């Protein structure tokens, strides 16, 4: 069953056509990558799914439901979690607090019960804490638990953001350039985690990526984008070998020819 369906997504900003008739679907349990040169519209797709932008034309369906009228904060309830290209962590809070915020979806208490901090609130806090600790264990973040995020190195911040998305117990994980800024070792860790997320946790992963090796290693299907339009969509091997895709990334041979 297609967990996520995009039908003819089209968005324009001012005079710029960011997305033109983009259609794809993501199957449950797969790793789906979106590749393309900078400015192709990859992050725009994510922002449309997260409902930060409204589509001019087209429809997005999550678990069969049309999300055109859903407000941004309701996407979490639909099981969609995401990370951001430029890291949108809560900088002044600690790692553990960031992760606990990922548990917000499971909040059942209201203001009055929290003001009195009655037993059920305390128990809910401890349960959230346990879940957050599971994520910390999974991503080896124990050493950074009580540190303020703004003081952490870039690679660790990215990991925390991944952890925060995981803490949401999502069904679909949208990762925007998860490996950008990471060195070889960190990227290998990331590949390991992503594979684990797919196989052990059964979460569907959609990622925007530039690192072709990472895409080759763990992805099932790939969508290639250029200038807001789909070049091709298919199995990883096929798409990555497609001459159109290679031309979009590397240009024509004649572009490099000297006189």
């Amino acid at each position: 069953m297609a967990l996520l369906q995009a039908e003819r997504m089209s968005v324009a900003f001012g005079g710029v056509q960011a997305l033109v008739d983009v259609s794809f679907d993501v199957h449950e349990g797969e790793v789906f990558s979106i590749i393309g040169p900078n400015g192709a519209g990859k992050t725009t797709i994510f922002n449309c799914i997260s409902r930060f932008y409204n589509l001019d034309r087209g429809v997005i369906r999550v678990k069969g439901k049309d999300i055109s009228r859903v407000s941004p904060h309701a996407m979490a309830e639909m099981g969609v979690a995401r990370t951001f290209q430029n890291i949108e962590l809560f900088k002044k809070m600690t790692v553990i607090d960031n992760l606990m915020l990922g548990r917000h979806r499971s909040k059942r208490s209201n203001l009055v019960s929290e003001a009195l901090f009655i037993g059920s609130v305390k128990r809910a806090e401890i349960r959230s804490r346990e879940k957050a600790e599971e994520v910390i264990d999974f991503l080896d973040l124990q050493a950074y638990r009580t540190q303020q995020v703004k003081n952490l190195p870039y690679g660790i911040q990215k990991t925390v953001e991944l952890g925060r998305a995981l803490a949401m117990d999502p069904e679909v994980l949208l990762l925007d350039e998860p490996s950008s800024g990471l060195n070889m070792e960190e990227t290998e860790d990331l590949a390991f985690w992503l594979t684990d997320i797919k196989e052990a946790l059964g979460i569907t992963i959609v990622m925007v990526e530039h690192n072709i090796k990472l895409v080759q290693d763990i992805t099932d299907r790939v969508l290639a984008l250029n200038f807001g339009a789909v070049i091709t969509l298919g199995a990883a091997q096929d798409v990555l070998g497609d001459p159109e895709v290679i031309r979009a990334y590397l240009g024509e041979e004649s572009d490099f020819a000297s006189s």
Partner: protein
Amino acid sequence: MDVITELTQAILSGVAIGCIYALVAVGFVLIYKATEIINFAQGEMMMLGAFIAFTCSSYLNMPYWASLLTTTVVMGLFGMMLERAVLRPLIGEPVFSVVMLTVGLGIFMRSVVSMIPGWGTQTYGFKTPFTDKFLRHGELVISWDQLAVILLTALLILVLFAFFRYAKMGVAMRAASRNQLAAVYMGISLNRVFSLTWIISAAVGGFAGVLLSPITFVYMNMGFIGLKALPAAVLGGMRSIPGAIVGGLIIGLTESLSGLYLTSGWKDVSPYIILILVLVIRPEGLFGIQAKKKV
């Protein structure tokens, strides 16, 4: 007085006071665009300018035009000193802190003025070459003071417009307010830009103060009037000088017209009601742009 005359009278005085608001609003917008700071002491700059002009003309017996010029120059220097001493150390700090700083500065300035001998807490009249001269057209009476405000404001706006359009430093300032990092790469000295921003803002504020003096007289709480220019600036979208001017005129006219047609008390709050109504419909102000963070 028939309705048309009353209305015209009210409109004129609305435009006149609107010009003052516009000038102070321009001061707000200039600083905001360059540094994202709201200078809550802008009203007090206006007040200080008024007092300086008053000192020039009453204690030093300078003619009006000389007082106006001196005030503008002195206030410009004051703005430069202020920027150097108190604002430059705060570059990079969160905006809220700096805003609170200007609030404190305003309070400090107001109180210090009240303690200076010769100034203090009294209200002082201010004579200009336009005082007690009136233009009459039938039943319509226009005071030359008001006209002078409108004309001089227009003059100053033209000067500023030319500066930002054609002068090298003016263009540099506009560039810096769009993208500080890019401006630095282009060789623009940000320090100089900030200095100049505060110099111009303070000078414009002082100028407005001199213009206001014959109408409301000179007293230490004049700054509160300047504060009403803040809704004017916000109304205009905090983005451009024309926006600030339109905002100022709208506020001035609203005040004047509600003073004419509504019971007293509404006069003071009507600008805020208009402001809130506009913001509800257009949260970015009349000419503002929706600044959405790009993720």
